[in-house]
């Protein structure tokens, strides 16, 4: 059982404000449902991961975009992104 306080704490860390109680209820129900994993009997199971050889990665080199990407933003000055002013 997970307390509402714990869910609110995680939401705060993720910068999400819960002002709708149905959000909390939905999260709580799903976490409750995840408890089914306790009976899966997979404690001794190895986790398999998909591996990609370094040699299969594309070369790490600069590819010019061809357009001024910054001009696609609503707010910019010169070559800088203009972020909102905050106190």
């Amino acid at each position, binding site marked *: 059982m*997970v307390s509402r306080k*714990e*869910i609110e704490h*995680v*939401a705060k*860390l*993720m*910068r*999400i*404000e*819960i*002002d*709708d109680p*149905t*959000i909390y209820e*939905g*999260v709580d*129900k*799903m*976490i*409750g*449902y*995840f408890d*089914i*994993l*306790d*009976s*899966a009997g*997979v*404690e001794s*199971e*190895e*986790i*398999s991961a*998909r591996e*990609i050889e370094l040699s*299969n*990665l*594309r070369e790490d080199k600069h590819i010019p*975009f061809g*357009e001024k*990407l910054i001009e*696609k933003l*609503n707010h910019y000055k010169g070559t800088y992104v203009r*972020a*909102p*002013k*905050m*106190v």
Partner: protein
Amino acid sequence: MNLKISALQFTREVKTGNISVEDFIGKTMEHIEKVDGNLHAFLSLNDNAVNQARDIDKKIKSGDKIGQCFGMPISIKDNICIKDTKTTCASKMLENYIAPYDATVITKLKQQDAIFVGKVNLDEFAMGLSTEFSAYGPSRNPWNTDYVPGGSSGGSAVSVSAFECVASLGSDTGGSVRNPASFCSTVGYKPTYGLISRYGLISYANSIEQIGPLTRTVEDAAFMLNLIAGLDSNDNTTINNNNADYLKDIDSGIEGKKIGIIKEMIGEGINPTVLSATKNAISKLEQLGAICEEVSLDMVKYSVAAYYAITTTEAGSNLARYDNLRYGYDFSVEGYAFNAYIEKARKKLGPEVTRRMILGGFVPSSGYAGKYFLKALKVKSKLTRQIDEAFKKFDLLISPTVPILPFKIGEKINDPASLFLIDINTVTANLTGKPAISIPYAISNGLPIGIQLIANSMNDKLLLQAARALEKTVKLPEVPI
């Protein structure tokens, strides 16, 4: 002008000069204007489609080299980037986002002279299975507009089913191509993980999601796969398919093939009508010479919980970029501290996305990662071992695509946990990376039922051959629009 033709029929008709691309696209756009107010498949339309069609007609007339699509009208799920067009993910957060580049699948289709008639609806950021979680309102099932079309690629399925295009691209994270295909009576294909590049697909859960086609026929799905599959240096999870031709030998049949009936997907909770249709499909396959036997994959019982634990964790990370600094919209910031500003910005995300982001923070968090996330990864590994073992004995596996019939709009929206369980038959293919297809099989009281076939990794060709064999046994009524 008959808009009710398949993609391959369209290319044949254009090649032989029976129809002009301009006429077909023009009529398609008129048809969309006429029916989409009610169906709401589209979020935006390509105002330049008829001009593009005219250019393709000119190329044909002048004998220029022409791509394999011959101006075919295709709709694109609105989480796939098309350069200089809106890509909203059906979210208010990306309401004004204009993609600065093409997804690889789009580049490939443009090279083949496809025409994108518009971007289609989805559950916000592809999180949902009814399209009711779109920030722009739900799409409606053309078979009965009181009912959901499935999701998250609901707009794709509606647009194909209602003849608003001849094919569509969706994305499938836990059944998001196959579920709406089943609910709207279209073919829906989820390829082997890595067969189609995800470059330009806005990420939700990138370790398991794939782009896939929704089409009128299995042949069309194979045709689309021929055009968009293959290695891509921009997505290092793609695999080399050696330019396989999925259309070639598609009528090979399934005589002598062994098909496993997944016991856990036809048991508790299945609608009796869906069960009856599934049994009927199995007997049809047996009549075609397949050998069908039951097989048990006991990890299926835990697959939905594992799927949501993994996907929400990836979503929590992937959606962290939506903070209104890099992507977002304008609102007054006076008086806000940094965190409060981002909290306020994220209120634009809908309830399902918010729920999943919080879950995605909680599941891998300190003290809970072992209980939820690591266990989910272990279930995924064990399920993969079980399905690999099953494929030592069977060529294919079968189940209903969705264990229930389409439901009414609003019927389940307030119970996310019960909605999640509808994914029980589709998430296995995603967790294990296997290819799977939904084939339209029956109509019960005016509502479609789809049958799912699953094959081993890279056996996409065999899967399409089997699906084609099953499809040929079926004659369904026309959609009542």
